[in-house]
Protein backbone atom coordinates (compact mmCIF):
# COMPACT_ATOMS: atom_id res chain seq x y z
CA UNK A 1 0.00 0.00 0.00
CA UNK A 2 1.26 3.46 -0.72
CA UNK A 3 1.67 6.11 1.88
CA UNK A 4 -1.57 7.94 1.13
CA UNK A 5 -3.90 5.02 1.68
CA UNK A 6 -2.56 4.23 5.12
CA UNK A 7 -3.13 7.27 7.21
CA UNK A 8 -0.72 7.48 10.09
CA UNK A 9 -2.47 7.90 13.39
CA UNK A 10 -1.98 11.50 14.35
CA UNK A 11 -1.51 12.46 17.95
CA UNK A 12 -4.24 14.94 18.59
CA UNK A 13 -2.77 15.86 21.98
CA UNK A 14 0.25 17.31 20.20
CA UNK A 15 -2.00 19.51 18.10
CA UNK A 16 -4.01 20.70 21.09
CA UNK A 17 -0.81 21.54 22.87
CA UNK A 18 -0.36 24.49 20.47
CA UNK A 19 -3.62 26.06 21.60
CA UNK A 20 -4.45 28.40 24.45
CA UNK A 21 -7.19 27.46 26.87
CA UNK A 22 -8.63 28.87 30.04
CA UNK A 23 -9.99 25.77 31.74
CA UNK A 24 -12.92 26.24 34.10
CA UNK A 25 -11.56 23.72 36.61
CA UNK A 26 -14.16 21.39 38.01
CA UNK A 27 -16.94 22.79 35.81
CA UNK A 28 -16.92 20.83 32.54
CA UNK A 29 -19.28 22.43 30.02
CA UNK A 30 -20.22 19.13 28.42
CA UNK A 31 -21.39 16.02 30.26
CA UNK A 32 -22.21 12.54 29.03
CA UNK A 33 -25.33 11.40 30.84
CA UNK A 34 -25.15 8.04 32.65
CA UNK A 35 -25.98 5.29 30.18
CA UNK A 36 -25.82 1.51 29.85
CA UNK A 37 -25.20 1.14 26.14
CA UNK A 38 -24.13 4.12 24.03
CA UNK A 39 -25.99 4.88 20.79
CA UNK A 40 -24.16 4.61 17.46
CA UNK A 41 -23.94 8.42 17.36
CA UNK A 42 -22.34 8.70 20.77
CA UNK A 43 -19.90 5.89 19.92
CA UNK A 44 -19.01 7.67 16.67
CA UNK A 45 -17.82 10.66 18.73
CA UNK A 46 -14.74 8.65 19.64
CA UNK A 47 -13.39 9.18 16.13
CA UNK A 48 -15.46 12.23 15.20
CA UNK A 49 -14.51 14.69 17.93
CA UNK A 50 -11.74 16.89 16.47
CA UNK A 51 -10.15 17.22 19.90
CA UNK A 52 -10.30 13.51 20.75
CA UNK A 53 -12.30 14.24 23.91
CA UNK A 54 -14.31 11.03 23.80
CA UNK A 55 -13.17 7.53 24.68
CA UNK A 56 -14.78 4.26 25.57
CA UNK A 57 -14.34 2.67 28.98
CA UNK A 58 -13.69 -1.04 29.42
CA UNK A 59 -17.26 -1.46 30.60
CA UNK A 60 -18.48 -0.11 27.25
CA UNK A 61 -19.70 3.33 28.26
CA UNK A 62 -18.52 6.45 26.52
CA UNK A 63 -16.51 8.90 28.58
CA UNK A 64 -15.51 12.47 28.02
CA UNK A 65 -12.61 14.69 29.06
CA UNK A 66 -13.62 18.14 27.84
CA UNK A 67 -10.43 20.09 28.67
CA UNK A 68 -9.17 20.15 25.06
CA UNK A 69 -12.62 20.85 23.60
CA UNK A 70 -12.61 23.19 20.59
CA UNK A 71 -16.28 24.10 21.12
CA UNK A 72 -17.27 23.08 17.62
CA UNK A 73 -20.62 21.61 18.68
CA UNK A 74 -20.34 18.42 16.60
CA UNK A 75 -21.11 16.10 19.53
CA UNK A 76 -24.18 18.17 20.37
CA UNK A 77 -25.56 17.89 16.85
CA UNK A 78 -24.77 14.20 16.43
CA UNK A 79 -26.48 13.18 19.68
CA UNK A 80 -29.40 15.62 19.51
CA UNK A 81 -31.84 12.78 18.78
CA UNK A 82 -30.75 10.63 21.71
CA UNK A 83 -30.15 13.39 24.23
CA UNK A 84 -27.17 11.49 25.66
CA UNK A 85 -25.10 14.56 26.33
CA UNK A 86 -25.70 17.83 28.03
CA UNK A 87 -23.95 20.58 26.12
CA UNK A 88 -23.32 24.17 27.07
CA UNK A 89 -20.79 26.78 26.11
CA UNK A 90 -18.13 27.20 28.78
CA UNK A 91 -18.87 30.09 31.11
CA UNK A 92 -18.15 33.45 29.48
CA UNK A 93 -14.39 33.92 29.01
CA UNK A 94 -13.44 30.26 29.61
CA UNK A 95 -12.55 27.56 27.11
CA UNK A 96 -10.47 27.75 23.95
CA UNK A 97 -8.89 31.11 23.03
CA UNK A 98 -7.94 31.33 19.38
CA UNK A 99 -4.91 33.48 18.64
CA UNK A 100 -5.37 33.28 14.88
CA UNK A 101 -8.69 31.52 14.24
Amino acid at each position, binding site marked *: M*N*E*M*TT*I*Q*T*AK*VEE*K*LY*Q*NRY*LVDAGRPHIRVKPHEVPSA*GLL*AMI*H*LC*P*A*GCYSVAESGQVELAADGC*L*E*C*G*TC*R*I*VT*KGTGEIEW*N*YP*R*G*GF*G*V*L*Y*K*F*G
Partner: protein
Amino acid sequence: MIDEKFDAIVVGAGPSGNAAALVMAREGLNVLQIERGEYSGSKNVQGAILYADALEQIIPDFREDAPLERHVIEQRMWTMDDRSHTGMHYRSDDFNEDKPNRYTILRAQFDKWFSAKVREAGALLLCETTVTELVRDLKGKVIGVQTDRQGAPIMADIVVLAEGVNGLVGQRSGLREEVSPDSVALAVKEMHFLPREVVEARFNLKGNEGVVIEAMGTITKGMTGTGFLYTNEESISVGIGCIVSDMTESEVTPYELLDAFKKHPSIRPLLEGSECKEYAAHLIPEGGYNAIPKLHGDGWLVVGDAGQFVNAVHREGSNLAMTTGRLAAETVIELHRKREEMSEANLKRYLARLEDTFVMKDLKKYKGIPALLHGNKGNFFGTYPQLISQAMQTWFRVDGVDKKSKEKAIMKNFRETRTLRGMLGDAFKLARAWR
Protein backbone atom coordinates in the same frame (compact mmCIF):
# COMPACT_ATOMS: atom_id res chain seq x y z
CA MET B 1 -25.91 44.87 36.61
CA ILE B 2 -27.31 46.71 33.63
CA ASP B 3 -30.76 48.16 34.26
CA GLU B 4 -31.04 50.48 31.31
CA LYS B 5 -33.21 49.46 28.38
CA PHE B 6 -31.50 49.27 24.98
CA ASP B 7 -32.82 49.97 21.51
CA ALA B 8 -31.17 46.74 20.40
CA ILE B 9 -29.20 43.82 21.80
CA VAL B 10 -26.89 41.91 19.45
CA VAL B 11 -25.93 38.38 20.53
CA GLY B 12 -22.46 37.58 19.19
CA ALA B 13 -19.50 39.57 17.86
CA GLY B 14 -18.56 37.73 14.67
CA PRO B 15 -18.88 39.46 11.28
CA SER B 16 -22.69 39.36 11.26
CA GLY B 17 -23.06 40.74 14.79
CA ASN B 18 -20.35 43.34 14.29
CA ALA B 19 -21.95 44.53 11.07
CA ALA B 20 -25.39 44.78 12.69
CA ALA B 21 -24.13 46.51 15.85
CA LEU B 22 -21.95 48.97 13.96
CA VAL B 23 -24.64 50.04 11.49
CA MET B 24 -27.22 50.54 14.25
CA ALA B 25 -24.85 52.35 16.62
CA ARG B 26 -23.65 54.66 13.89
CA GLU B 27 -27.24 55.76 13.32
CA GLY B 28 -27.53 56.70 16.97
CA LEU B 29 -29.31 53.63 18.34
CA ASN B 30 -28.44 52.57 21.84
CA VAL B 31 -26.87 49.15 21.20
CA LEU B 32 -25.60 46.47 23.57
CA GLN B 33 -23.55 43.66 22.07
CA ILE B 34 -22.84 40.51 24.07
CA GLU B 35 -19.97 38.12 23.24
CA ARG B 36 -19.04 34.96 25.11
CA GLY B 37 -15.34 35.09 24.19
CA GLU B 38 -12.65 37.07 25.93
CA TYR B 39 -12.68 39.38 22.90
CA SER B 40 -14.44 39.43 19.55
CA GLY B 41 -12.69 36.73 17.52
CA SER B 42 -11.36 34.58 20.32
CA LYS B 43 -13.88 31.83 19.49
CA ASN B 44 -14.02 32.26 15.75
CA VAL B 45 -12.50 30.25 12.92
CA GLN B 46 -12.41 30.88 9.21
CA GLY B 47 -10.22 29.89 6.21
CA ALA B 48 -10.05 32.82 5.73
CA ILE B 49 -10.89 34.80 2.64
CA LEU B 50 -12.47 38.20 3.16
CA TYR B 51 -14.58 39.54 0.31
CA ALA B 52 -14.04 43.28 0.21
CA ASP B 53 -17.38 44.31 -1.23
CA ALA B 54 -19.54 43.33 1.75
CA LEU B 55 -17.24 45.09 4.20
CA GLU B 56 -16.80 48.13 1.97
CA GLN B 57 -20.54 48.76 2.16
CA ILE B 58 -20.19 49.09 5.93
CA ILE B 59 -16.69 50.55 6.35
CA PRO B 60 -15.72 52.11 2.99
CA ASP B 61 -12.13 52.91 4.02
CA PHE B 62 -11.46 49.63 5.82
CA ARG B 63 -8.22 49.14 3.88
CA GLU B 64 -6.58 51.93 5.84
CA ASP B 65 -6.27 50.05 9.09
CA ALA B 66 -7.85 46.59 8.87
CA PRO B 67 -5.44 43.70 9.56
CA LEU B 68 -5.32 42.27 6.04
CA GLU B 69 -2.81 39.55 5.21
CA ARG B 70 -2.55 39.29 1.41
CA HIS B 71 -4.78 40.27 -1.51
CA VAL B 72 -5.65 37.30 -3.67
CA ILE B 73 -4.25 37.39 -7.19
CA GLU B 74 -4.42 33.67 -7.94
CA GLN B 75 -7.03 31.00 -7.35
CA ARG B 76 -6.15 27.33 -7.80
CA MET B 77 -8.99 24.81 -8.03
CA TRP B 78 -7.71 21.29 -7.66
CA THR B 79 -9.24 17.88 -8.23
CA MET B 80 -7.07 15.41 -6.36
CA ASP B 81 -6.53 11.70 -6.23
CA ASP B 82 -4.05 10.11 -3.84
CA ARG B 83 -0.93 11.00 -5.80
CA SER B 84 -1.89 13.81 -8.15
CA HIS B 85 -3.87 16.94 -8.67
CA THR B 86 -5.48 18.28 -11.83
CA GLY B 87 -5.70 22.03 -11.56
CA MET B 88 -7.50 24.99 -12.96
CA HIS B 89 -5.54 28.10 -12.06
CA TYR B 90 -6.53 31.66 -12.59
CA ARG B 91 -3.99 34.38 -11.94
CA SER B 92 -4.36 37.94 -13.12
CA ASP B 93 -2.43 41.15 -12.66
CA ASP B 94 -5.85 42.83 -12.73
CA PHE B 95 -6.21 41.67 -9.12
CA ASN B 96 -3.28 43.95 -8.28
CA GLU B 97 -5.63 46.93 -8.15
CA ASP B 98 -6.02 49.97 -5.93
CA LYS B 99 -8.86 48.37 -4.08
CA PRO B 100 -8.36 44.62 -4.24
CA ASN B 101 -11.40 42.39 -4.24
CA ARG B 102 -10.39 39.53 -1.92
CA TYR B 103 -7.96 39.29 0.96
CA THR B 104 -6.74 36.58 3.27
CA ILE B 105 -7.24 37.44 6.94
CA LEU B 106 -6.81 35.88 10.40
CA ARG B 107 -10.17 35.98 12.10
CA ALA B 108 -9.01 36.53 15.67
CA GLN B 109 -7.24 39.70 14.55
CA PHE B 110 -9.80 40.84 12.03
CA ASP B 111 -12.73 40.45 14.43
CA LYS B 112 -10.86 42.40 17.10
CA TRP B 113 -10.34 45.27 14.65
CA PHE B 114 -14.00 45.17 13.52
CA SER B 115 -15.09 45.15 17.15
CA ALA B 116 -13.06 48.30 17.89
CA LYS B 117 -14.96 50.03 15.07
CA VAL B 118 -18.25 48.92 16.61
CA ARG B 119 -17.27 50.45 19.94
CA GLU B 120 -16.05 53.65 18.27
CA ALA B 121 -19.51 53.94 16.71
CA GLY B 122 -20.94 53.99 20.21
CA ALA B 123 -22.14 50.43 20.91
CA LEU B 124 -21.54 48.95 24.35
CA LEU B 125 -19.75 45.58 24.21
CA LEU B 126 -19.98 43.06 27.00
CA CYS B 127 -17.40 40.26 26.57
CA GLU B 128 -16.91 37.04 28.56
CA THR B 129 -20.67 36.86 28.84
CA THR B 130 -22.84 34.10 27.39
CA VAL B 131 -26.48 34.74 26.58
CA THR B 132 -28.39 31.81 28.03
CA GLU B 133 -31.96 32.55 26.97
CA LEU B 134 -34.38 35.02 25.50
CA VAL B 135 -36.84 36.81 27.75
CA ARG B 136 -40.41 37.15 26.49
CA ASP B 137 -43.47 39.07 27.60
CA LEU B 138 -46.83 37.41 28.19
CA LYS B 139 -47.69 37.57 24.52
CA GLY B 140 -44.48 35.79 23.59
CA LYS B 141 -42.70 38.84 22.20
CA VAL B 142 -38.95 38.80 22.80
CA ILE B 143 -38.11 41.71 25.11
CA GLY B 144 -34.58 40.95 26.29
CA VAL B 145 -31.97 38.36 27.19
CA GLN B 146 -30.71 36.52 30.23
CA THR B 147 -26.96 35.96 30.56
CA ASP B 148 -24.72 33.72 32.62
CA ARG B 149 -23.73 36.70 34.75
CA GLN B 150 -25.67 37.21 37.90
CA GLY B 151 -28.43 39.74 37.69
CA ALA B 152 -31.74 40.60 36.16
CA PRO B 153 -32.39 40.15 32.43
CA ILE B 154 -31.30 42.94 30.09
CA MET B 155 -34.11 44.50 28.09
CA ALA B 156 -34.28 45.83 24.54
CA ASP B 157 -36.79 46.61 21.77
CA ILE B 158 -35.17 44.03 19.52
CA VAL B 159 -32.71 41.14 19.86
CA VAL B 160 -30.53 40.41 16.83
CA LEU B 161 -29.26 36.84 17.00
CA ALA B 162 -25.78 36.75 15.44
CA GLU B 163 -24.72 33.73 17.45
CA GLY B 164 -23.19 31.62 14.69
CA VAL B 165 -23.78 28.08 13.44
CA ASN B 166 -24.55 26.41 16.77
CA GLY B 167 -27.26 28.96 17.50
CA LEU B 168 -28.02 27.65 20.96
CA VAL B 169 -30.06 30.63 22.11
CA GLY B 170 -32.45 30.53 19.16
CA GLN B 171 -32.79 26.76 19.32
CA ARG B 172 -33.36 26.58 23.03
CA SER B 173 -35.94 29.33 22.77
CA GLY B 174 -37.81 27.35 20.14
CA LEU B 175 -37.25 29.85 17.34
CA ARG B 176 -35.78 27.20 15.09
CA GLU B 177 -34.94 23.53 14.85
CA GLU B 178 -31.56 22.09 15.75
CA VAL B 179 -29.26 21.94 12.71
CA SER B 180 -29.07 18.49 11.22
CA PRO B 181 -25.82 16.50 10.81
CA ASP B 182 -26.27 16.32 7.05
CA SER B 183 -26.41 20.08 6.62
CA VAL B 184 -23.25 21.08 8.49
CA ALA B 185 -19.61 20.40 7.75
CA LEU B 186 -16.98 19.93 10.42
CA ALA B 187 -13.78 21.71 9.39
CA VAL B 188 -10.37 21.43 11.04
CA LYS B 189 -7.61 23.87 10.32
CA GLU B 190 -3.97 24.52 11.21
CA MET B 191 -1.87 27.65 11.08
CA HIS B 192 1.61 27.00 9.66
CA PHE B 193 4.24 29.70 10.00
CA LEU B 194 7.04 30.34 7.51
CA PRO B 195 9.22 33.37 6.85
CA ARG B 196 7.57 35.88 4.54
CA GLU B 197 10.22 35.39 1.81
CA VAL B 198 9.64 31.65 1.83
CA VAL B 199 5.89 32.08 1.33
CA GLU B 200 6.58 34.48 -1.52
CA ALA B 201 9.17 32.30 -3.24
CA ARG B 202 7.11 29.13 -2.86
CA PHE B 203 3.99 30.65 -4.37
CA ASN B 204 5.62 33.02 -6.83
CA LEU B 205 4.40 36.17 -5.10
CA LYS B 206 5.57 39.76 -4.73
CA GLY B 207 4.76 42.05 -1.84
CA ASN B 208 1.29 41.42 -0.48
CA GLU B 209 0.08 39.22 -3.31
CA GLY B 210 -1.58 35.98 -2.25
CA VAL B 211 -2.66 32.59 -3.59
CA VAL B 212 -5.56 30.42 -2.49
CA ILE B 213 -6.06 26.73 -3.24
CA GLU B 214 -9.43 24.97 -3.03
CA ALA B 215 -9.27 21.20 -3.39
CA MET B 216 -11.64 18.28 -3.70
CA GLY B 217 -11.29 14.60 -4.43
CA THR B 218 -10.08 11.49 -2.68
CA ILE B 219 -8.64 13.70 0.09
CA THR B 220 -12.05 13.44 1.78
CA LYS B 221 -12.12 9.63 1.47
CA GLY B 222 -15.44 9.54 -0.37
CA MET B 223 -17.13 12.01 1.95
CA THR B 224 -18.71 15.28 0.83
CA GLY B 225 -16.13 17.92 1.59
CA THR B 226 -13.23 20.07 0.49
CA GLY B 227 -9.71 21.02 1.50
CA PHE B 228 -8.10 24.44 1.34
CA LEU B 229 -4.73 26.13 1.61
CA TYR B 230 -4.43 29.91 1.81
CA THR B 231 -1.34 32.11 1.95
CA ASN B 232 -1.11 34.74 4.67
CA GLU B 233 1.65 37.25 5.24
CA GLU B 234 3.96 34.93 7.18
CA SER B 235 1.84 31.83 7.46
CA ILE B 236 -0.30 29.33 5.62
CA SER B 237 -3.79 28.30 6.66
CA VAL B 238 -4.49 24.69 5.77
CA GLY B 239 -7.69 22.83 6.48
CA ILE B 240 -10.25 20.28 5.44
CA GLY B 241 -13.94 19.83 6.16
CA CYS B 242 -16.61 17.19 5.53
CA ILE B 243 -20.33 16.89 6.14
CA VAL B 244 -20.87 15.64 9.70
CA SER B 245 -23.25 12.80 8.80
CA ASP B 246 -20.64 11.42 6.38
CA MET B 247 -17.94 11.61 9.03
CA THR B 248 -20.18 9.84 11.52
CA GLU B 249 -20.42 6.85 9.19
CA SER B 250 -16.71 6.74 8.40
CA GLU B 251 -14.02 5.62 10.81
CA VAL B 252 -11.49 8.31 10.10
CA THR B 253 -10.80 11.15 12.55
CA PRO B 254 -10.82 14.78 11.38
CA TYR B 255 -7.14 15.20 12.32
CA GLU B 256 -6.13 12.10 10.37
CA LEU B 257 -7.86 13.57 7.33
CA LEU B 258 -6.02 16.84 7.82
CA ASP B 259 -2.66 15.11 8.31
CA ALA B 260 -3.19 13.00 5.19
CA PHE B 261 -4.05 16.16 3.23
CA LYS B 262 -0.89 17.82 4.54
CA LYS B 263 1.17 14.79 3.47
CA HIS B 264 -0.27 14.69 -0.03
CA PRO B 265 2.59 14.96 -2.54
CA SER B 266 1.04 18.14 -3.96
CA ILE B 267 0.64 19.83 -0.57
CA ARG B 268 3.61 18.64 1.45
CA PRO B 269 6.25 20.74 -0.36
CA LEU B 270 4.16 23.87 0.20
CA LEU B 271 4.27 23.37 3.96
CA GLU B 272 7.84 22.07 4.21
CA GLY B 273 9.72 23.43 7.20
CA SER B 274 6.77 25.30 8.65
CA GLU B 275 5.90 25.55 12.32
CA CYS B 276 2.32 24.82 13.34
CA LYS B 277 1.06 27.25 15.96
CA GLU B 278 -2.64 26.51 16.21
CA TYR B 279 -5.17 23.78 15.58
CA ALA B 280 -8.82 24.80 15.32
CA ALA B 281 -12.19 23.21 14.57
CA HIS B 282 -15.50 24.77 13.64
CA LEU B 283 -18.76 23.86 11.95
CA ILE B 284 -19.88 25.39 8.65
CA PRO B 285 -23.58 25.50 7.77
CA GLU B 286 -23.78 23.93 4.31
CA GLY B 287 -27.46 23.06 3.90
CA GLY B 288 -28.02 26.06 1.63
CA TYR B 289 -31.35 27.63 0.80
CA ASN B 290 -33.48 24.70 1.97
CA ALA B 291 -31.89 24.79 5.43
CA ILE B 292 -32.64 28.47 6.15
CA PRO B 293 -34.74 28.63 9.33
CA LYS B 294 -37.31 31.23 10.32
CA LEU B 295 -35.46 34.54 10.40
CA HIS B 296 -37.78 36.94 12.18
CA GLY B 297 -40.50 37.17 14.78
CA ASP B 298 -41.88 39.50 17.42
CA GLY B 299 -38.83 41.25 18.81
CA TRP B 300 -36.13 39.18 17.09
CA LEU B 301 -34.10 38.75 13.89
CA VAL B 302 -31.48 36.18 12.84
CA VAL B 303 -28.34 37.01 10.84
CA GLY B 304 -25.20 35.21 9.60
CA ASP B 305 -24.39 31.54 10.20
CA ALA B 306 -27.27 31.23 12.68
CA GLY B 307 -29.51 31.71 9.64
CA GLN B 308 -27.44 29.19 7.58
CA PHE B 309 -26.25 31.99 5.30
CA VAL B 310 -23.31 30.25 3.63
CA ASN B 311 -22.75 29.65 -0.07
CA ALA B 312 -20.76 26.43 0.17
CA VAL B 313 -20.18 26.15 -3.58
CA HIS B 314 -18.25 29.42 -3.64
CA ARG B 315 -16.96 29.15 -0.06
CA GLU B 316 -18.58 32.44 0.90
CA GLY B 317 -19.87 32.98 4.42
CA SER B 318 -18.41 36.04 6.10
CA ASN B 319 -19.71 38.30 3.32
CA LEU B 320 -23.21 36.88 3.66
CA ALA B 321 -22.85 37.32 7.42
CA MET B 322 -21.91 40.99 7.09
CA THR B 323 -24.57 41.66 4.49
CA THR B 324 -27.38 40.03 6.49
CA GLY B 325 -26.16 41.88 9.59
CA ARG B 326 -26.27 45.18 7.74
CA LEU B 327 -29.72 44.52 6.26
CA ALA B 328 -31.13 43.53 9.65
CA ALA B 329 -29.70 46.74 11.11
CA GLU B 330 -31.18 48.86 8.33
CA THR B 331 -34.59 47.26 8.94
CA VAL B 332 -34.39 48.01 12.65
CA ILE B 333 -33.22 51.60 12.03
CA GLU B 334 -36.17 52.24 9.73
CA LEU B 335 -38.70 50.96 12.26
CA HIS B 336 -36.98 52.80 15.09
CA ARG B 337 -37.08 56.12 13.23
CA LYS B 338 -40.73 55.75 12.32
CA ARG B 339 -41.44 54.67 15.88
CA GLU B 340 -43.04 51.51 14.57
CA GLU B 341 -43.17 48.37 16.63
CA MET B 342 -40.55 45.61 16.27
CA SER B 343 -43.33 43.17 15.46
CA GLU B 344 -43.14 40.09 13.28
CA ALA B 345 -45.23 41.83 10.60
CA ASN B 346 -42.98 44.90 10.49
CA LEU B 347 -39.73 42.94 10.67
CA LYS B 348 -40.78 41.07 7.56
CA ARG B 349 -39.16 43.97 5.70
CA TYR B 350 -35.83 42.30 6.53
CA LEU B 351 -36.85 39.35 4.33
CA ALA B 352 -37.80 41.70 1.49
CA ARG B 353 -34.38 43.35 1.76
CA LEU B 354 -32.66 39.95 1.69
CA GLU B 355 -34.53 38.86 -1.45
CA ASP B 356 -33.10 41.83 -3.32
CA THR B 357 -29.47 40.94 -2.72
CA PHE B 358 -26.95 38.38 -3.92
CA VAL B 359 -27.45 36.55 -0.62
CA MET B 360 -30.85 35.06 -1.44
CA LYS B 361 -30.31 35.05 -5.18
CA ASP B 362 -27.18 32.91 -4.89
CA LEU B 363 -28.55 30.59 -2.24
CA LYS B 364 -31.64 30.01 -4.39
CA LYS B 365 -29.54 29.39 -7.47
CA TYR B 366 -27.64 26.59 -5.74
CA LYS B 367 -30.44 25.14 -3.67
CA GLY B 368 -30.16 21.72 -5.34
CA ILE B 369 -26.38 21.38 -4.98
CA PRO B 370 -26.04 20.18 -1.36
CA ALA B 371 -28.41 17.24 -1.88
CA LEU B 372 -26.89 16.40 -5.26
CA LEU B 373 -23.31 16.24 -3.99
CA HIS B 374 -24.31 14.42 -0.86
CA GLY B 375 -26.42 11.87 -2.76
CA ASN B 376 -23.56 11.14 -5.21
CA LYS B 377 -20.60 11.61 -2.94
CA GLY B 378 -18.86 8.40 -4.00
CA ASN B 379 -18.73 9.65 -7.58
CA PHE B 380 -17.98 13.32 -7.05
CA PHE B 381 -15.43 12.82 -4.28
CA GLY B 382 -13.92 9.51 -5.37
CA THR B 383 -14.61 8.06 -8.81
CA TYR B 384 -14.42 11.21 -10.94
CA PRO B 385 -11.26 12.62 -9.35
CA GLN B 386 -9.56 9.26 -9.95
CA LEU B 387 -10.83 9.01 -13.52
CA ILE B 388 -9.69 12.55 -14.28
CA SER B 389 -6.23 11.83 -12.93
CA GLN B 390 -5.94 8.60 -14.92
CA ALA B 391 -7.07 10.37 -18.08
CA MET B 392 -4.51 13.13 -17.60
CA GLN B 393 -1.76 10.64 -17.02
CA THR B 394 -2.67 8.59 -20.08
CA TRP B 395 -2.74 11.74 -22.15
CA PHE B 396 0.52 13.29 -20.98
CA ARG B 397 2.71 10.21 -20.68
CA VAL B 398 4.61 9.72 -23.94
CA ASP B 399 5.14 5.99 -24.34
CA GLY B 400 4.83 5.07 -28.00
CA VAL B 401 1.06 4.58 -27.84
CA ASP B 402 -0.71 6.61 -30.53
CA LYS B 403 -3.08 9.43 -29.51
CA LYS B 404 -6.18 7.82 -31.00
CA SER B 405 -5.65 4.70 -28.90
CA LYS B 406 -5.05 6.89 -25.87
CA GLU B 407 -8.37 8.68 -26.45
CA LYS B 408 -10.10 5.35 -26.71
CA ALA B 409 -8.48 4.05 -23.55
CA ILE B 410 -9.57 7.14 -21.64
CA MET B 411 -13.17 6.89 -22.82
CA LYS B 412 -13.25 3.18 -22.09
CA ASN B 413 -12.02 3.79 -18.57
CA PHE B 414 -14.72 6.38 -17.92
CA ARG B 415 -17.43 4.19 -19.41
CA GLU B 416 -16.43 1.06 -17.57
CA THR B 417 -16.02 2.75 -14.24
CA ARG B 418 -19.02 4.99 -14.25
CA THR B 419 -21.13 3.82 -17.30
CA LEU B 420 -22.19 6.26 -19.98
CA ARG B 421 -25.64 6.52 -18.55
CA GLY B 422 -24.31 7.28 -15.07
CA MET B 423 -22.04 10.01 -16.42
CA LEU B 424 -24.77 11.61 -18.50
CA GLY B 425 -27.09 11.44 -15.52
CA ASP B 426 -24.54 13.15 -13.28
CA ALA B 427 -23.83 15.82 -15.88
CA PHE B 428 -27.53 16.46 -16.31
CA LYS B 429 -28.19 16.64 -12.58
CA LEU B 430 -25.23 18.94 -12.05
CA ALA B 431 -26.30 21.23 -14.87
CA ARG B 432 -29.81 21.38 -13.48
CA ALA B 433 -28.67 22.10 -9.94
CA TRP B 434 -26.28 24.77 -11.21
CA ARG B 435 -28.86 26.71 -13.24
